[in-house]
Each structure stands twice: as structure tokens, then as C-alpha cells.
């Protein structure tokens, strides 16, 4: 089957919103399956060759000084591609079983940027850090390059034959073959596996998530008869009580939830309304960091809190009586407070309780009981049973069956597809695996599991493969390949499975030979007829299609059925939780430098997992003499041994204010042993500590042993020992309602020479102390770029950091350099704790170049390498920079980043160099760099405006990478000279202030003070119970 017929006759396979103006584009670029040879091999295909050539040209043009590369003229250009112009394709990123719509930017045939698809309901154009960073993994040199059999390389065909032989042997011997796939939300994958197991009854297909948390699915199965996770809509919630649910942080749906949550966090003087979030938790999660009220609870009290809450709200119909029974007086009091808040919003059906995935099935049923009593359950309400996360059904039973089969020797062969049980499964599963005669792995990396396999086949990256994904609301997206597989001619995992099935039964799938055909056929036969006239082309163009048939009636609810579900048996003593990492999640992308170096939004730790504990816990472990900050800090970096019934790990300690006592939290995803050089030796494998739930543990201190922890922030409060610095401002909803915005007027230099408070100009533009001298009177005639950042919306999720890194070719510097304080991120998220150490609130202040009108960096550069543009940008001319670092010293925001070493070594570790954005110069060592407001995007917007006969860029046409990614929409960018632009309008917000306005540098970034939902008298953020 040719490319052409696959893509239909219109020659317009893909289109994005941006590209609509350019008319239909010829496609057929994406060879399905094995038609294209890999570019890493010595036999280079035409397309691969062109990709390399164009990439080399782009790099040569972009390089700062080195590298020197040969220019080879392009005799035949890439299909569809105009050199220098990007092409955008829609696709879908599957964050495990959550579908996020994606639009991928490609240049000269290589994907260089992932962003969200605005038409996709899950993420509405925004993107998470992992979604964007997955781009880097595409070009990871550590990916498996060719199939392996035993210890030697083999051909793809031979490798598949070898597996097919094992499958045939199993059939002959009357044994089973297991195909184990990662959790996904692909209907075609599910169907393909179903067809395979139907055609070969001795083959089983099992879904195996890295982190198995099926408690909610079990509860829903009992209560609603829905075996799956229901996705709540937080934009409908005005009061949220979370019980250890990190819905803004480690939740798979965090990207979705953040946008919905943020919609209710925009209070103004005229409409002083915002949601109230209470977080009862043992850890100090990202959600807790953004809470309006926190309740510190030991894990043993978490479900008791829930029970007490239910007793308050559901009354007689409560099913959590036994849970409530163990609640302490403090827990009960906290539950009463939370319940009163919930009740206040119950009349409008705007109150909801959320429960962490690791809490017991009983806890989830109790939460449903509360939510039902609050009126949150029902069609069109916060919890709508139509919104079920696909493929989220309980899996532990199937996995237990698989383990038992392997253990008993009934399984002759296992094919592990994109899963890594040797790394993340429990010990029993690993022991059982060892009894399987034939293990095959289809994986991106030669990881722990793949290294055990007799046959290992490289998997295709999501940007290299066809596929489908269904979102919780039924939206279907087709995953399109952007580039031919970079590794040895291997198709995507489903293609391997099809090839395998065809070896055994050539009639399998009839005429179809590739997954691409399977996908297209499925969409055309199963989706298009019920999608209101949508065509295959339209589906690819939009990136989403919503079949109309998915109208399921409201599920019947039987809350009392939840009463018999098991409750948790959390330890009352020292408990340990191995939670998903905010940067790496489950560790699937552990070999990704962008994610490894992404500072944890809460702890600011990079390149490590650690043992987080409260100050009091550190004292009781005798790591610190008392809970004073100076004593507690000495506990950091000491090494402890944490042992549970399943495993033992050594971890460095980091004291985390706000955690419950007698709890240790560590992160999953680290401690990889055989995946790649990036993640080698980083952290320890915390899966051995009963992943995903609290486990009883014993802790011993390794006396005298220390391990350095690389954090990007060393001072964590606004207080400097003599007062609180008014640099990251926060206020309460009460203040907003009263119209008391005095906090944003506050300056460090509160008094003038006469002892009187200094006068301020009008809000927004003129909010500065003194008139300018040298630069006063300059009129910005054209555009004048500016930004507004709403700290009330920003959760600190750090998506913007990766967006910036990807857009602006920011190198990864490594743990050693982070330890020295040399991370290169152009945007950082300053996180300040407020209040006391026991249960602090926090303020997150994204900090990037402020593009000061009166920039102190500009006048001190001796060679004029940093100058001011007529559009108000503070520009950095890399080629001119000699590296005196004077500008860095003189920057009051310390947002300039210096290339102390040659961090952008583009010649090494090919093909990582292909990830670079050709619009942005790579910086050589000795050169200063910093945020440019994505000047390359501004130029593109201006060219587009000019091509359309306009002299100005319209509001919303110029979008910075951080703004584009922000899940909360906290960043607004635009032309301050346009009085109607969003940036001009929001700049005038009452909460607006500019950081360090008293030193008169006139920044172009306005911040809106964070608002905490608290009465006016309370000044501290996140007041605890």
C-alpha cells in the first residue's frame, strides 16, 4: 500500500491551525513501517540523507563559533518542506493512559518542538514538561539502534522470527505467551491486542502500569459499576478538599486539572471570588503548596480525616464509620472546618472531595459518598460518570494472574512492550519472570528488562509512529509520525506485533501489513461514520474528533456497596511513600537530560531522589539537634537507610517544611542501572519500597555519610534574617474584596529621605519612583513587548522551563554544574515559603529576564553586546559577547546565564544535535545568555503580519514558548503599546506590581500578586489548620 493511498487523495494529511492560511500541503512524507532506512546507519536513505543535510546546514548557520561542517547543496528537497519554514502536524502524546493533544513543529523534516493542541479538551493547547521533553528522547543517542538476539545484533526479520518460533513452540507445548504492554489509551492498540489474542488463544495481553494504583477503579466498580477512574471537572468546583491527592502535581491528569483549577483563581476587586482549596496530606505536594489551607496528617490519619468528613456531611448514610472511628481530636477538628467550607458550596453543587490514588478503595468510596452528598456527582456536574479515564480499570488481578502463570511455568514466552518490570515491578513478579524461558522486549532503551531479554527490538518513539488515543471525554486523536524511525529500520511496537502475528498466521489482518493501515481503517470504519461527516483528512488536520455515539447514560450509584471495600492499613509509626517524581513521573523518560535537570517544583532538587522529611522527623532521627532552621539545615545531605518489608535503599535527607511527622517521601523514577548514560547512577530505585503507597519502614542513619544534593535554590524564604523582602507579593481574598492592595505598593525602601513614604505614580506604566535620566523620553513607536505573570494562577509546575529549554536550545549542564550553581534555564520558578516551618504556605514567582527599560546590564557591557531594541527588548548579541560577566553581576534579578564551559557541545552525542531549533543560535562557552522573549517568534509574527499586509502584529499572534506551554494560562505576553492587548489590560490589574520597582530599572514584566483564599486579617499564605 502506498503512502498516497494511506493519506487519501487530497494530499493534505496534516494541517494545524497555524498552517491553515498556507493552503493544502503535499504529504506522503511519512513512510509507514519499514519503507525508510535509518539515518544512523551507514546506508543512508534519501530522506534520511536530506534530513541530515538540512539539519547540518541549519546547525552550521546557527553555530556560534564551532562546529564547522561541510555544506552540501540540496539537489532534491524534502517533500512539502520549504527550507526555512516550519511545518506543523497534529498528534497526541499519551501520558500513560491520558491523551494530550499535541501540535508538533518540524523543520526540514525533523520535529523540533511539541506544544499542545488547542482543540483538544484534555489540555486546550497547553503542554506538560514531560510531553515537551519527550522530544529530546526522540534523538537520544542511547536508544536501542538495532535488534539484538542473544549478545549479537540481528535483523528485524530474524528477531521477529525468533519470537514467532517461541510463540509456535508455546502453542505446541500447550503453554501460554504473554504480551505485556504499558498502560495506554489507544483504542486501536486495544483492538489489535484483542484480535491477536482471538486469533491465537494461547496468547494473552496484559496492561502493566509502572505505578499500579487501581484503588479508585475498584471503588468505582463497586459504587457505579464503572471499572475505571472518573475525571472530575475542577473548573466547576469552588471548594475543593483534597486528601493526599496531588491533582496539580504528580497526578497523570495534572495538566488537565491545572487549567481547570486556574480558571477559578482569578479574583478581582469587582468580582472577589475564587475557589478554596484545602489539602490534607502527609507529604508537601505541589497541590499543598498551592492550597489555601493545609492539614498536616500522618498517613494513619488520612482516611480517618475522610471518615470524619463523611460523618459531618453524609450523616446517616455514611459508609466510612470505621474510618472515622480512628480519627484523633485534631483530625476531627480539621474535618469539621473542611466540612463547613464544603457545605457552604454544596448548594450550588460546587464542592468536591478528591482522594489520592494510593488511598484505599474504601477511602475512594467514602469520597464518592461525600461527593454524592455534596451534589457533586451527576451528569454535567463536577464528577460526571461519562468522563472515565480510558484503560484505567483495575489491573492488579490480571497482573497477579500473569505472575502466577509465570511462576507455575505455564508461560513459555513474554513479550514486554515499552514496559520495564525488572526495574519497577515487585520482587515476586521479578522472581516469576526469571522462570520464563523466552523473554523478548520491544523498547526504546536497552533497559533493565530489555537487557534480560533473549530478543530485543527497538521501539519507535511516539513522534515516529502511527497510533490513536482516546481522551476521557471520548475525543479521538490520531497519532501521526513526524519522522522516519531514527534507529535501524524498525516500525512502532504495534507493527512488530502485527509482523509477529503474520509470521504465525499470514492471514492475520488480511491485506493489511502495517499498523498505519490498521489505524486508518479503524478510524474510517469505526469513527468517521459517527463523527458528523468528519473526514480522515479533517481528523488529521484538527488533531481531534469526537464521535457522537459516546453518550452513555448516567451510571447508577450505589454508595453503600463501597462499605465492604477494604480500608488501608497504613502504619502508625514511621511511614515511607515512594511517590511519582514531579520531573520524571515513573521514570520512563529517565534518560532525558531536560527532565533530570528540571528542578522539582517543590524542593528545587535536580538529578536526584531524596528522603524528604519534616524538621521534627529529622530531630527524632537525631539528624538535627532541634527544629530551628540553622539546626535543621545540618540534617540535609546526610544519608539514611530506609527499609520496608520489600526493600532497602540509601537516600540523602532533605528536610521539607510542611510535611507530617514520621513520614518519609521519596521519588520514583531514579536509580536506573542499564538504560543510558544520562540516568546512570542518578538516585536510587525507590520502586523497591512498595511503590505508590505508604509502607511501614525502619530508618537508620548512616553516620558520617553524606551525599551532595544539587538544588537550584538555596534560600527558601523571603525573610533575610532582618525582615521580609517585598519581592514576591501575596495577599488574601479578603484584601481583594476590601480593595486593600497596599501590599503591591510596598517597597523595600519604604521611606524617602524626609521619612515619608515614597510616592508612586499611577498603576501599570508609571508605577516607578523617580523619573529616568539618560533614557527618559524615548518613545517606543512600534511594538513594545511586555509580559504579565499572574502568580495566583502559577502553580509552579515548571512546564514553562522545559518549553523554554526546547525552544531556545538551552543545554543541560549536569549535576556537577548545578551543584556549582550554573544551571542555564532562562526561566526559573522562585519558590518562597511563607509562614512557619511546620506548615508553610508558598509563593511561586517565575523569574525571567525582565527586559528592563532602564536595564542595568546594558550600560556596563564594555563591548555593547547587550543593547535595547526599539521594541523594548533587552537584546543579547552572542557573537559580540566577550564574557566579562559584568552584566550578570549587575542584574538585580540574576536572570543572566553564563556559559562557563562549552555546554552546547553539538558535535558530541549525535543525533542529539537534531533537536535544536534552527531559529536560535547555539551559544559557545564564554558567552552570556538569557531570556529573549522568544525574539525569533516575534520576528516570525512580524513577517507573517507583513505578508498579510499589516504593519503591526495582532494581539495573540506573538506567543512566547513559556506562555504557550503554561497549563494555567498564568503568562500573558503582548504589545504594551496596544491599549487593547491582553497584556495592556491585565497590567492595570489592581494586583499588578513590578519586582524591585524601587531601584528604577523599569522592568517590562508585571506580576499580579498571589491571592490566597483567606480572610483579610490573615496575611500569611496557606495558613494551616
Amino acid at each position, binding site marked *: 500500500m502506498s503512502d498516497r493511498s494511506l493519506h487519501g487523495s487530497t494530499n493534505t494529511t496534516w494541517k494545524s491551525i497555524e498552517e491553515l492560511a498556507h493552503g493544502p500541503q503535499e504529504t506522503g512524507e511519512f513512510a509507514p513501517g519499514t519503507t525508510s532506512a535509518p539515518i544512523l546507519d551507514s546506508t543512508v536513505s534519501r530522506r534520511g540523507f536530506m534530513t541530515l543535510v538540512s539539519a547540518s546546514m541549519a546547525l552550521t548557520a546557527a553555530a556560534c563559533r564551532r562546529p564547522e561542517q561541510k555544506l552540501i547543496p540540496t539537489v532534491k528537497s524534502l517533500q512539502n518542506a520549504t527550507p526555512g519554514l516550519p511545518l506543523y502536524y497534529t498528534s497526541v502524546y499519551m501520558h500513560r493512559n491520558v491523551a494530550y493533544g499535541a501540535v508538533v513543529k518540524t523543520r526540514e523534516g525533523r520535529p523540533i518542538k511539541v506544544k499542545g493542541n488547542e482543540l483538544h479538551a484534555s489540555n486546550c493547547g497547553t503542554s506538560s514538561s514531560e510531553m515537551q521533553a519527550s522530544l529530546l528522547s526522540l534523538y537520544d543517542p542511547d536508544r536501542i539502534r538495532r535488534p539484538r538476539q542473544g549478545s549479537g545484533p540481528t535483523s528485524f526479520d530474524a528477531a521477529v522470527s525468533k519470537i514467532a518460533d517461541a510463540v509456535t513452540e508455546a502453542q505446541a507445548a500447550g503453554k501460554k505467551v504473554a504480551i505485556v504492554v504499558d498502560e495506554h489509551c489507544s483504542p486501536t492498540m486495544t483492538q489489535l491486542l484483542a484480535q491477536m489474542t482471538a486469533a491465537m488463544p494461547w496468547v494473552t495481553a496484559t496492561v502493566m502500569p509502572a505505578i499500579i494504583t487501581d484503588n479508585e477503579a475498584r471503588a468505582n466498580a463497586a459504587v457505579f459499576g464503572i471499572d475505571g477512574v472518573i475525571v472530575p471537572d475542577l473548573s466547576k468546583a469552588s471548594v475543593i478538599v483534597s486528601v493526599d491527592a496531588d491533582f496539580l502535581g504528580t497526578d497523570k491528569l495534572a495538566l488537565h486539572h491545572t487549567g481547570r483549577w486556574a480558571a477559578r483563581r482569578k479574583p478581582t476587586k469587582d468580582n472577589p471570588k475564587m475557589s478554596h482549596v484545602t489539602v490534607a496530606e502527609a507529604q508537601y505536594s505541589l497541590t499543598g503548596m498551592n492550597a489555601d489551607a493545609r492539614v498536616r496528617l500522618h498517613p494513619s490519619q488520612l482516611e480517618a480525616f475522610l471518615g470524619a468528613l463523611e460523618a459531618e456531611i453524609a450523616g446517616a448514610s455514611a459508609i466510612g464509620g470505621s474510618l472515622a472511628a480512628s480519627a484523633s481530636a485534631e483530625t476531627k477538628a480539621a474535618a469539621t472546618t473542611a466540612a463547613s467550607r464544603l457545605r457552604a458550596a454544596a448548594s450550588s453543587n460546587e464542592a468536591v472531595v478528591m482522594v489520592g490514588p494510593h488511598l484505599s478503595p474504601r477511602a475512594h468510596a467514602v469520597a464518592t459518598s461525600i461527593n454524592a452528598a455534596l451534589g457533586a456527582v451527576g451528569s454535567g456536574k463536577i464528577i460526571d460518570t461519562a468522563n472515565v479515564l480510558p484503560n484505567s480499570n483495575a489491573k492488579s488481578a490480571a497482573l497477579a494472574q500473569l505472575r502466577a502463570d509465570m511462576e507455575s511455568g505455564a508461560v513459555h514466552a513474554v513479550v514486554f512492550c515499552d514496559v520495564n518490570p525488572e526495574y519497577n515491578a515487585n520482587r515476586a513478579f521479578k522472581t516469576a519472570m526469571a522462570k520464563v524461558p523466552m523473554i523478548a522486549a520491544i523498547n526504546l532503551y536497552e533497559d533493565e528488562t530489555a537487557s534480560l531479554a533473549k530478543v530485543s527490538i527497538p521501539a519507535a518513539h511516539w513522534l515516529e509512529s502511527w497510533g490513536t488515543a482516546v481522551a476521557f471525554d471520548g475525543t479521538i486523536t490520531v497519532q501521526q509520525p513526524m519522522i522516519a524511525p531514527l534507529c535501524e529500520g524498525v516500525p512502532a511496537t504495534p507493527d512488530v506485533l502485527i509482523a509477529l502475528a503474520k509470521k504465525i498466521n499470514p492471514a492475520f489482518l488480511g491485506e493489511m501489513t502495517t499498523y498505519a493501515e490498521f489505524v486508518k481503517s479503524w478510524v474510517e470504519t469505526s469513527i468517521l461514520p459517527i463523527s458528523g461527516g468528519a473526514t480522515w483528512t479533517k481528523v488529521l488536520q484538527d488533531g481531534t474528533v469526537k464521535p457522537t455515539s459516546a453518550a452513555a447514560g448516567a451510571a447508577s450509584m450505589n454508595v453503600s456497596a463501597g462499605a465492604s471495600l477494604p480500608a488501608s492499613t497504613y502504619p502508625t509509626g514511621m511511614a515511607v511513600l515512594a511517590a511519582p517524581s514531579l520531573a520524571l513521573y515513573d521514570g520512563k523518560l529517565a534518560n532525558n537530560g531536560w527532565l533530570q535537570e528540571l528542578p522539582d517544583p517543590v524542593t528545587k532538587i535536580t538529578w536526584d531522589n531524596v528522603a524528604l522529611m519534616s524538621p521534627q522527623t529529622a530531630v527524632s532521627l537525631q539528624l538535627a539537634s532541634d527544629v530551628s532552621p540553622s539546626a535543621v539545615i545540618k540534617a540535609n545531605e546526610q544519608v539514611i537507610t530506609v527499609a520496608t518489608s520489600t526493600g532497602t535503599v540509601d537516600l540523602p535527607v532533605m528536610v521539607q517544611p510542611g510535611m507530617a511527622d514520621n513520614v518519609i517521601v521519596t521519588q520514583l523514577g531514579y536509580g536506573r542501572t542499564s538504560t543510558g548514560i544520562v540516568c546512570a547512577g542518578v538516585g536510587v530505585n525507590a520502586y523497591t519500597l512498595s511503590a505508590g503507597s505508604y509502607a511501614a519502614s525502619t530508618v537508620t542513619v548512616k553516620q558520617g555519610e553524606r551525599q551532595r544534593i544539587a538544588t537550584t535554590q*538555596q534560600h527558601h524564604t523571603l525573610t533575610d534574617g532582618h525582615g521580609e523582602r517585598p519581592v514576591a507579593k501575596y495577599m488574601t481574598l479578603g484584601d481583594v474584596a476590601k480593595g486593600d492592595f497596599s501590599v503591591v505598593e510596598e517597597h523595600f525602601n519604604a521611606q524617602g529621605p524626609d521619612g515619608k513614604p515614597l510616592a508612586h505614580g499611577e498603576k501599570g506604566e508609571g508605577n516607578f519612583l523617580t523619573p529616568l535620566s539618560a533614557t527618559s523620553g524615548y518613545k517606543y513607536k512600534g511594538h513594545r513587548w511586555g509580559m504579565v505573570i499572574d502568580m495566583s494562577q502559577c502553580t509552579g509546575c515548571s512546564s514553562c522551563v522545559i518549553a523554554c529549554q526546547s525552544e531556545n536550545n538551552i543545554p543541560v549542564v549536569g549535576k556537577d554544574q548545578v551543584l556549582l550553581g550554573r544551571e542555564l534555564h532562562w526561566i526559573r520558578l522562585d519558590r518562597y515559603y511563607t509562614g512557619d516551618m511546620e506548615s508553610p504556605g508558598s509563593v511561586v514567582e517565575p523569574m525571567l529576564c525582565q527586559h528592563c527599560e532602564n536595564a542595568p546590564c546594558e550600560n556596563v557591557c564594555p563591548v555593547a553586546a547587550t543593547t535595547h531594541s526599539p521594541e523594548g527588548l533587552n537584546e543579547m548579541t552572542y557573537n*559580540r559577547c566577550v564574557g566579562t560577566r559584568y552584566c550578570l553581576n549587575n542584574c*538585580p534579578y540574576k536572570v543572566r546565564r553564563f556559559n562557563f564551559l562549552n555546554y552546547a557541545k553539538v558535535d558530541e552525542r549525535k543525533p542529539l544535535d537534531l533537536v535544536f531549533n534552527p531559529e536560535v543560535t547555539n551559544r559557545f562557552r*564564554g558567552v552570556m545568555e538569557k531570556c529573549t522573549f522568544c525574539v525569533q517568534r516575534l520576528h516570525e509574527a512580524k513577517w507573517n503580519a507583513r505578508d498579510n499586509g499589516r504593519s503591526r502584529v495582532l494581539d495573540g499572534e506573538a506567543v512566547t514558548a513559556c506562555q504557550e506551554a503554561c497549563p494555567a494560562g498564568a503568562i500573558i505576553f503582548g504589545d504594551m503599546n496596544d491599549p487593547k492587548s491582553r497584556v495592556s489590560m491585565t497590567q492595570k490589574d489592581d494586583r499588578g506590581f513590578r519586582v524591585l520597582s524601587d531601584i528604577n530599572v523599569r522592568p517590562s514584566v508585571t506580576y499580579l500578586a498571589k491571592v490566597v483564599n483567606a480572610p483579610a486579617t490573615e496575611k500569611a499564605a496557606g495558613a494551616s489548620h
Partner: protein
Amino acid sequence: MTVVQEQQRLQHSSHEEPVREELVLGNPSLRDVTARIASIVESKITPKYLATLTVTGGMAGLGLFALYYTIVTGIGVWGLNNPIGWGWDITNFVFWIGIGHAGTLISAILFLFRQKWRTAINRSAEAMTIFAVICALTMVLSHTGRPWLFYWLLPYPNQMQMWINFRSPLAWDVFAVNTYFTVSALFWFVGLIPDLATLRNYVKSDIAKKIYGVLSLGWTGSTRHWHHYEIAYMILAGISTPLVLSVHSVVSFDFTVGILPGWHTTIFPPYFVAGAIFSGFAMVMTLLVITREILDLKQFITMKHLENMNKIMLATGMMVGYAYAMEMFIAWYSGSDWERWIFINRAMGDYAWAYWTMVLCNVISPQVYWFKKLRRNLPLMFVISIFINIGMWFERFTIIATTLHHDFLPASWGYYSPTWVEISIFIGTFGIFLSLFLLFAKFVPVIAIAEIKSILPGAQPKHHHGDHHADASAH
């Protein structure tokens, strides 16, 4: 007015002065003086000298290796980081530039003020100036991220059509330091010409004769030569004089023009100049105490010279002490919380040890010089001079590191400590400095022969009516 007349007028005006100590002891003859000083050049190179030169050369080699390593690898081999863009590099630069100032002060200002006691020490002080500026230039050239582009800091016509940024204090630095080096080198060399001619006549080896001959530029000692020489020397002294004030003022602008609390202050120019003279005299002292012992020049470099220098150190030490106190006061008086905090942090923060080392060395230690007995105590003055050298280095380090490590936004605070590379480079600058000084002490007259003759006991009658004759005959 000729030099001689001027001199005469000055001396007449000071006839009230009490009986002064002799500036040259032992009443040597003119021939003795020449022989005594020139013989150092003629004498054989001793193993001790070679051993010392090997050690200092080794230090220089270590520093040059560290510089080479830095340039081929990147500034990242130093301990600098994102809040702290300058560390030992600029500390050393300011330190060495400061060291140089004593030489210029002694040779130019004391010359114009007719301080005759300067004669014995001006040559070595000037040499020290040049060597210190060489060290400073080494630091400033190597501290940039891309040192091979150093010439971009110079205003020259180029295909990029780019001027330097004249608003940047670093651009002013380039002018200040270059001017300083050029003028100091010229001043030193012009002063050397008569002595080089003396050596040309004195040395026996042909090669040495040739070298000294070329360097002495055909000096014959004619009246015409002396006349031109005196004028040139006077003009250069006049040009050098403002440099004593301007160079370190300009260096201080590197900080004052910055907007950081702790840097952005008007007291810096005078404070830096006083500190420079203070540190320069300390370094001269350190070197002279050793030189006069080793080369046995006690006859020429007398206790009176040393005592005078100690007096200057006491005075300038008090000035920097005043500046430290005034910085604190103004930080409080300004009402700026940023300023107040940075100074509290200086004295009580992470770098408090550096601050108090500085105060102890620079303010407390020179106080012993209130007592004449202590001013004339050779071991003590050596120790104090070392203290002051250390203290003045820490002064620069304190200014740079404490201000940068904790500025406005607490989230970006950091800490800085040097790596072996920076320490090696610092040792290396000492190696370069000492090696050059050793070579100078061996091959160039360490005391201005022609000038010292003018202050010999015989040439300096106590009765003022014979002054100008004596002066004239001395040449």
C-alpha cells in the same frame, strides 16, 4: 624656572626644619656609591639567587599553566557561578592595581614635593608598579569568557563598525590601566637612562656592555642631556601624578556604577585610592625589608625610609578604617533597607570571616605605628606589611563576594569558593611579580645611582646657602 632653581626655592622655604637623620649612612664617596650599587649587577649569580628564582619561576609556571588550562577549557574551571560572576579574578586585579599605586606615589608625587627620602626607594617602587600592573593585566585579560577577543575592548576601526560601549566602566578601565602601564613604564625607563649608562661603562662583559649601551640610548652625561632629562622626568612626574588618583578611582567605578547594594556608593573612589596607597606601601615594605637584607643596602635604605613608609601606612590605614566606618554609617543613614542589609550581612553573614580578617589586618594592625619604637622595629614592620597585604586583598574580596552572593532576590542567592585553578593563578601572579623583581634586582640598579648621589651627606650641606651647588655637582 629650571629644576635647580625650583629646588633651591623649595629648600630655602624650609630652613626651619629640624636636624634630620642622614638618608645615606656611612658617608660614602660618589665612587663608592656607584661601585656599591653597580657591583650587584657585576657580581656572580649565586646559587641562593638561582634557587629563589627557581621557586618564583615555578610559581609563575604554575600560574601560567593554570591560565592556559582556563583559556582552553573555559572559565568554568573556576568556582564562579550564576549570582557570583566575579571572584578571585577581579579581586586579584584590583589588588595588583592597588599595589602599583605606591610606586607611582613615591616616584611622582614625592618627587614633586621634593621628599628626598624617596630617592633610595623610588626605583624599586616604580619597578614594583610595573610588575604589579603586569600581574593586574594578566588577571584582567584572562578573566573574560573569550579572552582571545580581548581587542574588542579597544576602540579601533573595524569591519563590524562597532565602537566599544563608552558608558561601561570596564571600557574606562581599559583606558585607565593602559595609560597607567604606559606612563609608569616610560617614567621608570627615563629615570633609568643615566644609571644604565653608568652600568654600560661599569660592566666588563661585551654582551652586557652592548645591551646596556643600547638601553642607555647614547647617554653621555652632557649638560644638554641632563637638561632634557630633567625636563622629561619632570613632565612624566606631572603626568603620573593625576594617575595616582585617577586609576584607582576608575577601577572603583567598576563597582560604583553597578546598582548593587554595597557597590553603588560614592565613597569608593577616595576610599580605593587610599587603600591602593596603603597596600602599595605595604608591598614596597615587604620587598624592601628583604632586598636591603639580601643585597646589603642598609646604607641606602635606612631606618628613616622605613619609618616614613610606616607613617604613611598608619595614615592611609586610618583612612580606609574611616571608609569602612563611613560605609556602615551611610548604609544606615541612607534609609535603604537593601544597603542596610548588605552591610549587616558583610559583618555577620557567610563571609563575615573575610570581613573581620580585613578589619583586623587593615585597621587594627597598623595602630602599632603610633609608637616610634615599633615603627622602627624591623621584624614587626615586616609582619605588619604582610598583614596589610592580606587585609587589602580581603577588602577587595569582601566587596566583590559579599555583594554578589546575596543581592536582591533571596531565591538567587549563592556562595562562592575558589578552585585550585584560581588559587594557582593567584600564586602565579606572585610568581611573575617576584621573578620580575628578582631579575630587576640583579640586572638593573635597584637604587637610582644618579639620584642617590644628590642626597649623600656631602652633597647635602646642612646650611641652606650651598644647596644648589651641591645638587648640581651631584649629577
